[in-house]
Structures are given as structure tokens and as C-alpha cells.
């Protein structure tokens, strides 16, 4: 008991200690400006080796009480930190902050619980700042906001449908049947990014054709995240940086840090956007004549009737451009964000409430997102800190019905066979006429159907940081991080019985309910041991656990009572359920050594096991190691030309789980005569299925020139994937048709070059720019099974083919004119030749700021089948033109080429140069009164200008959604461009 009292007293003393120490110091005042002399507000002014600190006010001024022998550190995101000894101070301090153009001072994650300054990093870790993410021209969803911003990534929007749905591939294809998408970690919480289909296939029958994918094009769940809440994003592109995340990291890790409060006056900020969205590009429609209308039928009688119908429609002024009618809507958008931050000595907070509502370019489609976030930080004692991040999101997307189908029901497929002289408009009673040219009347479908995804998502993360031991040389911390990510997704697809194509089913209601719970926790101990001023060791070790529990129910009711949607109002009901559950556990150890701040070496290993693996108890080992050597710091190089030269290299391993259930041979239901039966599935299981292993090596050089005004970062990587999984065809006498196998090895290698510079820095104009260049090349280095065709509709239309010695993303097909006996030839490659982006900010007199992001994707082919479908429907805009002057109109010529056995015409260059974001903002400096502190107005253009030779709606497209196969274009929801006006008021 006495011991306890004593230690309590000790703890009490510890609290008092700072006050006792600093009470007898002196007051330091001063002003912080940038290089050009403009005052800087919000600069953190802290006392070294203490918890004391303040921030500068709007005029850049500060005041702080410190001990005589203390040192003050001035720091501000994006600027180099400065340390100032109080003993040197006299009068008002004048601090000039220098911009950290090369981001060398930026703190970057090193492991699950440690960080390192970029200048000491052994990897090329990409970062996206809040300004880059959301400060130029805000995107509709979080995934769209990443587009064009990650060097080394291939990001592609699947369609223009509201609510997102993008594929993010970091450093090439990492898996063919496994997960290709990175792991998203938000404030330590592993976020689920599953795309759940709404079951539209029950109506579209898309899977009944040449590809078994449902092609439902759902959105990815990461779309729900609010870009406005994000402070910073770090991107670990491969195993060399991400190995410590183990089996989840094979496709890279995107680490997202949200905004947090800091000590000081409570700041309230309100931001409002208004804007509109329009179709980026329409294909146009065929202008019929009496003659061409007649040619729609080969039957003379019908032909004459069609000509007559055209002539009458023309006389009555009833020729329509249905493409414009469908996709020509100008969607109104609004977005409001209220954020409040502040904090006291012990507790700080960030709160935001936001709502956006955006209409799509098709009536009845749109996206709505409401989000609440509260991030709290509390110091229990000086040694124990706890942080809490909570987020609630409600989102709702109405996505319409577009893309491939086999029933003529999607807007776009129906449009492809609807000529301009048929009248689809409703009569005075609201009855829509039957469209004789298609299975559906697209105007009726748009007016009456529903396809909604609605999400309620709660995410909570907890972060505990406790100092267990502290001495002059050594500090040991316990870091605990964990979180839960829960969402409930409800999909509703309603097709009322009045619809033309519901004449058999008499009303279809498809209702899907999905619940997903992910949890994860990390507990680790971190020891920092400063053996001397020049030698520091950081040791960390810990355990991790991740669980996932996904449950999807899908009900399809047909013969639904008029005006009803509940499934019990239907005459027939079929249901299906899919569940997925996993538990992963890991143990990791990591050591980082810093010698002279010049040589940094790190090594770590993670042991991982998972219920997804063939053997759930087996631990797999994922090592990593890296080193960086700063030649300038070492003093071997002259500082006059190069300010900072760093050589770095890193190696790491990771893995990707086998597809869920691939280790089992399942029995499927097969009933007869009212008896329940089970029969082996056509897909065989393999109890020995192994994870896909990945080993990545990267090396690079970073250097700065011209007094750190120009910074280069050059990285080469080689990423090998061993035992990649393929669904292989097996001899059917085994009872199975296919089976997952570890089929071979593949390799990605590439180069990433980044330049950050500040070419102009005067009081009047400041220009900061970054330029990135990158490319990736993939190759299947080993394949133990015969080549596999996948990812599209077969060789007659152009498809992917996994083949030893070839690029994993090659597009092959038949080309009868050159290869008449039906051999398969390479027609293209989906991988871009290279990509570039440049982000620029030009500021005039610190008030007017022009920011823009240009993204250039050079090369990279799509399989464009949209035009083929329009040709088959005889409605392509250039159907009657004759581009090559051979007297055969384009339409019949292209169809003839396809029927003649050539897929060459479908494989098209999908390169583009796109002004992804342009923003012009003005900040008012002198605002009367003292309620409003700041006011900013701006205009923003998102995806507004695109240069491309691609003949579809947009070069960014993916009929098969997010996965291995991207760039297959089958009548998608057209991409939109957006413009908005923004007003932000700070209180």
C-alpha cells in the first residue's frame, strides 16, 4: 500500500514537473514569415524535449514562455523545421521558414508503429497531401480523387456511373485471379474495399454470354471515404515497403491519415460547393434517310414500311437524338462541409459534418454522401496518449443500368439498336410505346427502374501510445492500434411490370443485403536507443490480428405486384447467399539503425498465417530489408552542385491469399423429384493451395540541386510474383472442369522518376511544380499449364492471354486477313507505354492561386466493343460514311471485318492527356469585423479537358469492374466532366 502511495505521489510530481521547470524562464516573442516575408499562420512553435508549445496567429506572431536554456522548434507541414536556442534570442525573433520542396523533412511510415523522415527513407514512398487530394477540383468519390496522383500506379475508372468504382493497380498486375487492389488503412483501421454486385444479372443475363462475369459494375466500398477529412496519404507500392503488412500487402498499401485537432483556438470552417456535371463526350447517332431506314430490313415489305415510317417521322419533326436525350442531362451538384478543430492542453479534436448530393448525366442517377467524423486525442498523462477516430458515412448511389447485357435491357445496349425515327416518348396518359427495334424502350426504363446501392458505415480506430520507460539514451513505447470497420450495404434493383422487357417476368425486384465487419489490431513495443549522437537503434516487435466477416444475401422476386417492391409481393422468389470469413495473425520484428544520420539500415520480418491458406496453421515468413546512404551527409561529395544525394535500396516479400474457398471441393445443390441432392462442383479444390508470393526489390537515387529548389527522386523496381493463381482447365474425366492452381511466376519491373521544384519564388509570384514519369512492364516468366484466355469475350473480339514469356496484359485475338488458319496473334497491350503527371500551383501575391493537375497516359490499349454493338444495331454515327473511300460504308465494312475473323479493329489505343483538375482560388485578406477570419472563393474543373484519339465514350472504362481485366469497353455509362464554384469561410 505504501509503495502504491509513493508511486502515485511520483506520478503527481511528474505532472507538476514541467510547470516547476518553466515557470522561472523567460518570454520569447516573434514573427514567422516565409522566404518572401509573408506572415505564416498556424506554425507550430514547440519547446524541444518538452510538451510545451503554441502556434502562430494570423499575422505569424507568437509568444511563449520558456526556460533560459531551452531550444524552440518551428515546424509547419511542407516547410523545413527550424531550431532556435533561447539563449541566442534578443528582442523579437524573426523566423523565415523555408519550403521543403523535396519533402525531405516529411515523416513517413517505416513499419507498423515507427516512422522515419523522408530524407532517411530507403523506399520510394508516394505521398498525396490534402491540397493535392482535394484542394484543386474535388472529385465525386474518394477513389476518383486518387486518379492521376500516384506515380507508379495504373488507376482506371470502370465507368462514369455515379458512386465511384475504380481500379487501382500499384506497380503493375500483381495477381490474375486474386486481389489486385491495395489495402486501405485509415488511421490504423483496415478498410474493406469489396465490390458487391446488386444482382442485376438476373435481368441483364450478361453472364450468359461469352464471359461468366456478371458485369454488374458495382462500386468499390472505399469510395465512401470523405476526401475533405484527409490530411495525408502515403502509398507503399509493393512488398519492399509493405512487407510488414504481410499477406494483405501484395497489391500495396494506401495509408490514410485523417485530420486531427491541435492545441489552440477553436477554428470553424465552412465550405460550400455548387456545380454541375455533363457528359464528357458523346459518340453521336446515325442520321437516317428514307433509304437507309429501309435498309434496316431485308424483307421488301418491312423495308418499305420502315422508309415510310422515317418519312412520316421526318415530316412530323419527330426525329430524335436519343443519345443526347439519355446522356444529355446536366447534373446539379452541391457539397457542404463544416469542420471544427481545436483543443486544450490535454485534449484536442477534429470534427466534421459533410453532405454532398450530385446528379448524374442520366436522369434518375446520382450520388449522395453524408459523413460525420470525430477525431479525439487525449493525453492521459505526459506519457500516455490515446487517440480515437470515428467516422459514420451514409452513401447512396443511383447507378442506372448500363453496360453489357444479353437481353437488350441496359440503356446503352437498347440505345445501340434504336434508330432516330422511332418515337419512344410516352403518350398523354404516361404510357410508353413498345420499341420495335429493341427489347426495351430506354426512356421508359430510365423513368421507371431503380438501381440503388445504399451504405451505412461505421469506422472506429483507437490508437494508444504509452511510454513505458525513458532514460537519456533509451525510450520504450507501447503502441496499440486497432479498429473496426462495419458497413451494411443494401442494394435495390426494381424493374416494374410496365417495362417493355418485363412482359415475361411481370415485374422484378432484386434486393441484396450485405453486412461486413472487419477488425484489426496491432500491439507493438518500440524501443529507441541512442547509443551516441551518431548512432541510434529503433527496435520494434509486435503482434497483429485481422478478421473479416462478410455476408451477402440476394433475393430475386419476379411477378411482383403492381407498384410493389417487397419480395413477398412476388409470384416467384429465388435466393442466394454468400459468406466469407477469415482470420489472419501476424508476428513482426523490425530493427532500424541510423548511423551519423547518413547511413540508415532497416530489416524486419513478419510471420503470417491465415484461415484462407490451404494450411491455416502454417506460418509464412515475409522478410524485408532496406538501406539508404546519404553521400552528402557522409561528406564524400561536394555540396555545391548537389545538395543532398542519397542512394537507397530495399527488398521485401509479401503474399496474396488464394481465392476464398479455392482449397475446398464443394458440393452444390442438385435436386430431383423433390429430393435434396448434392453433386461435386465443376471447380475442384486444392487443399495444398499456396498463397501467391511476391518479392520486390527497388533501388533509387534521390538528389537536390540549386539550393534544394529542384529535387529528384529516381526509382527502379523489380517485383516478382511466384506461384500466381490461375483457374486452370483440368481433364474433365477427373469430374472437374477447372481448378485453382499455383500456375507460374510473373514479373513487373519499372521506373519512376519524380521531380519537385520551385522555379519561381518571389513576393509577387510563387510557382511550385512536381513532375512524375513512370512505366511498368510485366512478363509471365513461368507457366506450368497451357496458355489461358481470360478477361474478355474470346479471341474473335480481342482478349487477354496468360502465356509464358509474354506480357501479362497482352491483348490477343484472331486476325484472319493475316492469319487465315485461325492462329492467335498479339493485337495490343493494356499496359500504358508510360504515364506522366504534373501538379502545379502558381500563387500571385499570396492571394490568387492557380492549381492544376495534368495526367498523360501514353499508349495502353482497350478492347472497344461499344462501336461494334452500335454497328450491329446499325446506329453508329459514322455508319454511312466511307473513311477509306473504298465505296463500302464504314458500318458494313467493320461488321464484315469482324465476320471475316478479325479482332484487330477492336483493340484501340486508349492513351490520353487529361487536365484532371484545374482550380483557381482567391483568398481575401482583410475581412471587416472579427467574426470571419478567412474567406476563400474558387472555381474548379474536374476532368474537364481531355485529348484522346480513342473512339469510345472515354478511354477509362472497364466492363468487368475492378480486377485483372480493365479496359474492355461495352457500352458503359459515359464519363462526365464537372465544374464547381467553391466558397470557404473560416471563423
Amino acid at each position, binding site marked *: 500500500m505504501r509503495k502504491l502511495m509513493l508511486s502515485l505521489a511520483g506520478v503527481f510530481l511528474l505532472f507538476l514537473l514541467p510547470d516547476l521547470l518553466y515557470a522561472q524562464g523567460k518570454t520569447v516573442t516573434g514573427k514567422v514569415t516565409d522566404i518572401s516575408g509573408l506572415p505564416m499562420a498556424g506554425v507550430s512553435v514547440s519547446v524541444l524535449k518538452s510538451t510545451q508549445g503554441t502556434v502562430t496567429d494570423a499575422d505569424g506572431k507568437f509568444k511563449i514562455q520558456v526556460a533560459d536554456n531551452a531550444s524552440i522548434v518551428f515546424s509547419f507541414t511542407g516547410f523545413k523545421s527550424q531550431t532556435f536556442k533561447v539563449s541566442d534570442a534578443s528582442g523579437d525573433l524573426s523566423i523565415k521558414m523555408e519550403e521543403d520542396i523535396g519533402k525531405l523533412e516529411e515523416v513517413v511510415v517505416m513499419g507498423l508503429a515507427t516512422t522515419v523522415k523522408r530524407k532517411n527513407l530507403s523506399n520510394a514512398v508516394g505521398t498525396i497531401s490534402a491540397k493535392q487530394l482535394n484542394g484543386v477540383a474535388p472529385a465525386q468519390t474518394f477513389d476518383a480523387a486518387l486518379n492521376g496522383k500516384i506515380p507508379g500506379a495504373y488507376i482506371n475508372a470502370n465507368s462514369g456511373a455515379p458512386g465511384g468504382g475504380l481500379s487501382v493497380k500499384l506497380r503493375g498486375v500483381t495477381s490474375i485471379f486474386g486481389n489486385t487492389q491495395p489495402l486501405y488503412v485509415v488511421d490504423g483501421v483496415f478498410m474493406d474495399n469489396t465490390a458487391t454486385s446488386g444482382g442485376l444479372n438476373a435481368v441483364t443475363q450478361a453472364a450468359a454470354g461469352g464471359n461468366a462475369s456478371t458485369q454488374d459494375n458495382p462500386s468499390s466500398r472505399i469510395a465512401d471515404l470523405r476526401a475533405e477529412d484527409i490530411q495525408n496519404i502515403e502509398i507503399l507500392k509493393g512488398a519492399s515497403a509493405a512487407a510488414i503488412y504481410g499477406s494483405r500487402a501484395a497489391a500495396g498499401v494506401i495509408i490514410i491519415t485523417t485530420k486531427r485537432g491541435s492545441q489552440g483556438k477553436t477554428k470553424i470552417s465552412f465550405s460550400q460547393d455548387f456545380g454541375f456535371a455533363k457528359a464528357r463526350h458523346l459518340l453521336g447517332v446515325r442520321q437516317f434517310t428514307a433509304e437507309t431506314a429501309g435498309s434496316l430490313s431485308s424483307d421488301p415489305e418491312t423495308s418499305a414500311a420502315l422508309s415510310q415510317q422515317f418519312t412520316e417521322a421526318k415530316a412530323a419533326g419527330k426525329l430524335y437524338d436519343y443519345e443526347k436525350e439519355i446522356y444529355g442531362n446536366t447534373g446539379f451538384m452541391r457539397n457542404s462541409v463544416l469542420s471544427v478543430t481545436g483543443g486544450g492542453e490535454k485534449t484536442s479534436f477534429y470534427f466534421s459534418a459533410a453532405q454532398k448530393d450530385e446528379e448524374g448525366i442520366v436522369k434518375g442517377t446520382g450520388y449522395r454522401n453524408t459523413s460525420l467524423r470525430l477525431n479525439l486525442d487525449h493525453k492521459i498523462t505526459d*506519457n*500516455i496518449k490515446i487517440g480515437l477516430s470515428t467516422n459514420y458515412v451514409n452513401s447512396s448511389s443511383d447507378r442506372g443500368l448500363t453496360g453489357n447485357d444479353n437481353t437488350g435491357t441496359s440503356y446503352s445496349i437498347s440505345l445501340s439498336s434504336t434508330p432516330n425515327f422511332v418515337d419512344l416518348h410516352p403518350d398523354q396518359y404516361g404510357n410508353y410505346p413498345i420499341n420495335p427495334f429493341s427489347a426495351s424502350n430506354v426512356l421508359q426504363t430510365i423513368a421507371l427502374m431503380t438501381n440503388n446501392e445504399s451504405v451505412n458505415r461505421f469506422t472506429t480506430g483507437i490508437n494508444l501510445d*504509452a*511510454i*513505458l*520507460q*525513458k*532514460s537519456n539514451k*533509451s525510450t520504450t513505447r*507501447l503502441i*496499440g492500434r486497432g479498429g473496426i470497420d462495419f458497413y451494411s450495404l443494401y442494394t435495390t434493383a426494381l424493374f416494374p411490370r410496365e417495362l417493355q422487357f418485363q412482359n415475361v417476368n411481370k415485374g422484378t425486384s432484386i434486393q441484396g443485403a450485405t453486412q461486413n465487419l472487419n477488425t484489426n489490431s496491432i*500491439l507493438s*513495443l518500440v524501443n529507441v536507443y541512442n547509443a551516441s549522437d551518431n548512432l541510434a537503434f529503433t527496435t520494434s516487435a*509486435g*503482434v497483429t490480428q485481422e478478421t473479416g466477416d462478410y455476408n451477402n444475401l440476394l433475393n430475386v422476386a419476379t411477378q411482383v405486384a403492381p407498384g410493389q417492391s417487397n419480395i413477398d409481393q412476388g409470384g416467384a422468389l*429465388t435466393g442466394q*447467399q*454468400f*459468406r466469407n*470469413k*477469415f*482470420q489472419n*495473425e501476424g*508476428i513482426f520484428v523490425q530493427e532500424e539503425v541510423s548511423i551519423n544520420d547518413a547511413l540508415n539500415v532497416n530489416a524486419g520480418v513478419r510471420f503470417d*498465417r491465415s*484461415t484462407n491458406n490451404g494450411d*491455416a*496453421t502454417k506460418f509464412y515468413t515475409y522478410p524485408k530489408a532496406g538501406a539508404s546512404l546519404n553521400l552528402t551527409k557522409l561528406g564524400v561529395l561536394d555540396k555545391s552542385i548537389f545538395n543532398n544525394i542519397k542512394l537507397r535500396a530495399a527488398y521485401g516479400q509479401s503474399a496474396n491469399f488464394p481465392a476464398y*474457398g479455392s482449397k475446398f*471441393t*464443394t*458440393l*452444390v*445443390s*442438385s*435436386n*430431383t*423429384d*423433390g*429430393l*435434396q*441432392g*448434392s*453433386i*461435386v*462442383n*465443376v471447380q*475442384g*479444390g486444392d*487443399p495444398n493451395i499456396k498463397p501467391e508470393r511476391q518479392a520486390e526489390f527497388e533501388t533509387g537515387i534521390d538528389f537536390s540541386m540549386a539550393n534544394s529548389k529542384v529535387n529528384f527522386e529516381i526509382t527502379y523496381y523489380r517485383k516478382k510474383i511466384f506461384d500466381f493463381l490461375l483457374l486452370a*482447365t*483440368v*481433364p*474433365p*474425366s*477427373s*469430374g*472437374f*472442369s477447372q*481448378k485453382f492452381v499455383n500456375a507460374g511466376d510473373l514479373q513487373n519491373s519499372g521506373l519512376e522518376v519524380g521531380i519537385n521544384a520551385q522555379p519561381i519564388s518571389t513576393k509577387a509570384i510563387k510557382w511550385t511544380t512536381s513532375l512524375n514519369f513512370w512505366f511498368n512492364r510485366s512478363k509471365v516468366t513461368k507457366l506450368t499449364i497451357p496458355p489461358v484466355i481470360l478477361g474478355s469475350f474470346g479471341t474473335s473480339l480481342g482478349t487477354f492471354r496468360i502465356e509464358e514469356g509474354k506480357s501479362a496484359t497482352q491483348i490477343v485475338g484472331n486476325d484472319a486477313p493475316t492469319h487465315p488458319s485461325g492462329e492467335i496473334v498479339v493485337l495490343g497491350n493494356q499496359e500504358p507505354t508510360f504515364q506522366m503527371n504534373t501538379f502545379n500551383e502558381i500563387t500571385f501575391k499570396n492571394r490568387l492561386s492557380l492549381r492544376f493537375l495534368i495526367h498523360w497516359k501514353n499508349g495502353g490499349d482497350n478492347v472497344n466493343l461499344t462501336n461494334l454493338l452500335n454497328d450491329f444495331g446499325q446506329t453508329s454515327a459514322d455508319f454511312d460514311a466511307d473513311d477509306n473511300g473504298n465505296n463500302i460504308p464504314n458500318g458494313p465494312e467493320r461488321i464484315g471485318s469482324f465476320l471475316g475473323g478479325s479482332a484487330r479493329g477492336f483493340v484501340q489505343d486508349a492513351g490520353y492527356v487529361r487536365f484532371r483538375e484545374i482550380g483557381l482560388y482567391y483568398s481575401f485578406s482583410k475581412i471587416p469585423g472579427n467574426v470571419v477570419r478567412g474567406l476563400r472563393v474558387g472555381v474548379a474543373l474536374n476532368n474537364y479537358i481531355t485529348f484522346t484519339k480513342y473512339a469510345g465514350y472515354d478511354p477509362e472504362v472497364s466492363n468487368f469492374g475492378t480486377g485483372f481485366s480493365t479496359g474492355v469497353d461495352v457500352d458503359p455509362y459515359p464519363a462526365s466532366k464537372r465544374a464547381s464554384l467553391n466558397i470557404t469561410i473560416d471563423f
Partner: protein
Amino acid sequence: MKRIVNFPIVLLLLIAVSITSCKKEYGNLNSPTVEDYLKNASKDQLNSLVVGSLAGMRNNDGLYLDAVGIIGREMYRFSNADPRYVTELLGSAPLNNTGFYITNPWASRYRVVKNCNVLIDAATNSSLISDAERNGYLGFAKTIKAFELLLNLNLTYTNGIRVDVADPNNLGPILSFDESITAIASLLDEAKNNLNGSSIVYPLTSGFAGLDDVTGFIKFNRALAARVDVYRQKWDLALTDLGASFFDLSGDFATGAYEVFGTGSGDQLNSAYFPQNQNGEVRLSHPTFVTDMEEGDDRISKATLRSTPASNAGLSGDRDIWVYTSSTAPIPIVRNEELMLIYAEANIQIANFDEAVKAINVVRNGHGIGNYTGAMEKEALVNEMLDQRRFSLFFEGHRWIDMRRYQKLGELPIDRPGDQVWSAMPIPITEGQ
């Protein structure tokens, strides 16, 4: 060194220990797995495999009947979706080892074989059933397996089949026709031995009405054995096996075992059924089916006159196939009328002509065309027997196989110059041969 807090270390260790100890396997959450069933299957699980096998026997059976019916010149099949019914199957283009007509039925039959093998292993491993019950399951599995293998051998004939497919990673060789048919015969015998004295505790469909107990199922097994016997030209054996089957000269033609169809959940419809007078997707009887028929034969009802003739690719016909007259009409596996004609055939071959004609006359009179009046010698009787099989077993998958075993494929009609009658289908390319 000052220790500030130490309880988290203990906490950390505790959690580390608890994490590493709470490891579990989730198994498959969405459906049962073969691995589960092989451990120690319950009776209900085994029964589920029995029903699944019966249900699986129906997969692609419409396509099987089409393929053997087209090559055996019983019928034409027109399809907008696939021209190969009127090209490759009729011999105007070579048969392809990737063709749907072989790959799909082949895979479906072996899937049932696999299911039977799982049933055999599961029943063998189960400690929850008696030996008699175990033998009941084994007898069922081997009988069905033999039948499924026979259907594939019917397709590939001299190209053979794999019989040993128990281990998917180590498949047995492809055997010759003789080896294969012998293996099928011994599998049926093994099954009979298992069934003798066994106990059947699994449900069979209404297609096995009257054959759904041990005695009945042995009769079904022997009926199949009799068919295999005549395919092997084991005439005496055929008569013995007929004696142990449900063969009954005075019985109903239709008595036998059937695949049944239904509209229930997870059930399927008869894919050999098309409505009459349909366009686009059409099954026509071969014109000679009716022209070769004797006056007054009631079996003409199997080929009904269309309201308008159908034609495609230089072929035409005016009679729909009308054997399966609804989408839930059953398809025979083996029935008494075939057994009568097997009885006739075996007796012809052992020169017991009177007994043979007795059986032929039962069939003839049953269809309204009176007694046989032809010569009482082997060749004439064989032709008569083949004719009766042709009309009685129309679109039940026999004509091509029958003409083949009597080396009479050359007698089948050729409709277009360049067409030919195939004797065997190729082994699917995916078998890697």
C-alpha cells in the same frame, strides 16, 4: 533507467498468447465440401450424394440424345445459335475435339462418376452405417458409375474412355473399347455383389418406381448388364442377366428406370423437349423414319407433322420429334421394350429363332403391325430386330450404337454430298491425349 508503467507488457503478453491460441479453421461457409463428407458421413449426407448423382445424370442429356441421334440419322437439329449440328455432326466438316457435342456430355458424365466415387469413399469411411447399408450405397454408386461410363464409351467408341478416375491428380489411362466395356461389365457385377444382401436406406426418385428396393435395384442393375452383354456379344450371359432383371415379355413396354424432371427449386426441365412447330430451335425426325415405317405402326406418333416444314443448310423435314411431350416428361434409362429386343437379339445370335420371333412379335403387335412374316434366318432377323429397335427406341440414344455394332453405319442415309457418318467421337482436347 526509470520504469514508468509495466502493466502493458503483461497485457501485451496476455493478448499475444490469447491470439495465438484462438486459432480455428472456418471451413467452407457456403456449401458442404467433399472433404467434410469423406471424414465420417452421416446417412443424410450419403443420401444427399445419391440424389445428387441421380440429378446430375440429367445434365446435358438432351445434347447427348441430339448428338447420337444426328449421327445415327434419326433426326436433324436446327439452331440459330450453333451451325455445328448441321455441319460437323452430319460429317460435312470434321468432328472437333473441342466441340460442345463431345466436351459437354463427356464432362457431365464424369462429374456424376466423380460424385459416385465420392459416395463410395464416403460410405467406406463412414462409421455411422451398418455394413449392409454400406453395401447398399456401394451397389448404387457402382451401378450408376457404370452406366455413366457406358454413355461416354458410346460416344468415343474405339477411342476409349478412362475408367480409373478416382484420383483427379493421377488419372488412369484411356482404355481401348474392349478393355473399357469389360471394365464396365465387371463394375456392374461388383455392384450386384454389393447389393446382394444389402440394405437400401436412401430415397430414389419416382423414376425408379418398383425398382427402389434391394430386389428392384438389382433388377435395374441386371437390365443394364444385359445391355452391356449384347454390346460385348456375350449372348448367353445376356439371357442370364435378362432373367435377373425386370424383363417381362408379357409386361408393359414402359416398365423400367427413368430420369425424371420437375419445376421444383434446384430441379431441372427435360432439355430434350421442344414444343411442336417451333421455329429457330428445332428437332426434326429424319424423313426416312416415317418413310421406312410399315403401314399402321403407332410409333409414327413419335414424329408429328409440322404446320410448316423447316429447312436449314440444305436439309429439310416436316415432322417434329415428339418423344418427350412435355418439359417434365421422363427420359428412360432402360426399359422393358429394350429388354424384349435384347432377348430377341440374344436368341437370334444363338440361333434360337422361334424364341426371338416370339419377342419380336410382342413388340410388333404392341405397335399394331402384326406378326413377323420374314425369313427365319439370322440376317433377316437381325435386320428386323434392328428395325424394331430403331422405331421402339427412337430418340432414346440407340440407333447409332446399334448400327455401329453390326457394322452397318454405311447403310445409314446420307442427305447431302460430302456428308459422312462418323463411327466415333474424338476424346476431348482437355484430356491432354
